[in-house]
């Protein structure tokens, strides 16, 4: 398995979707290849960063719905009723 091949199957490996034989080859390569081990770790960290930032309630969630949006939604409902 080359480093290129490893990166192509990385997501399947992390999600447990590789067949057992392929998984063993993959794990063996990671054990012997420092750049691939680093890539795997930083890939996981990047996924964690994306999830954490976008679900950060204090940053992303507006305190209230803008009043003009509330009025627009209710007005459109009234027109279509």
């Amino acid at each position: 398995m080359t480093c290129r091949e490893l990166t192509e199957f990385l997501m399947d490996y992390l999600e447990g979707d590789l067949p057992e034989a392929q998984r063993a080859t993959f794990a063996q390569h990671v054990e012997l290849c420092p750049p691939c081990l680093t890539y795997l770790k930083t890939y996981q960290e990047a996924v964690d960063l994306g999830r954490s930032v976008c679900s950060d309630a204090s940053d992303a969630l507006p305190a209230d719905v803008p009043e003009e949006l509330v009025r627009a939604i209710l007005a459109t409902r009234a027109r279509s009723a």
Partner: protein
Amino acid sequence: MTAASSGPVETAKRNEDGGERGLIARLRAGDDAAYEELVRSQGARMLAVARRFLRSEEDARDAVQEAFLSAFKAMDRFEGGSRLSTWLHRIVVNAALMKLRSRQRKPEISIEELLPRFLENGHFADPPSEWQQSADQALERRETRERVREAIDRLPENYRTVLLMRDIEGLDTAETAEALDVSPNAVKIRLHRARQALRGLLDEHMLESVA
């Protein structure tokens, strides 16, 4: 009533469920105050979702408005199998996707430029380096959060959308494929490439040493 079903958590849940059932009944009866209550209680969360997909505040608000109108029309068909908030979440994601499809595509970077490069022998052309901090440590810096949001915004739209739907909004592969009208395999490929591209875009920032 058993002890297990009469504790404070269970009582709070029953109250919440009862409150939601009451709201749904009022909505179906056409109660104007109930519609306003729905918009005010759910709108902020829905706006946050729309903003993640749409780069324009105007587009995000349009999507939320469309989502609520769709929900109002479909209220009689809401069977209550999931929570209102879950149902509305799905509707606003779809509204945001429709808004994306309706807009003219701006020129964007090719995903290939954001993926790792390899030599002919399959080795990394630029071997990756260890990041100076873990995700948890890096997130303590405001700059990191801004860089992550900027990086996600820079992803080509087809890949950014899948990343948002799978990793952020929590839809599974089948749900994402159905919403985007692509195969599940296409979703998996796009997600993996999006994650790789995100990693590449964050590399420089995460390699900076922190004093």
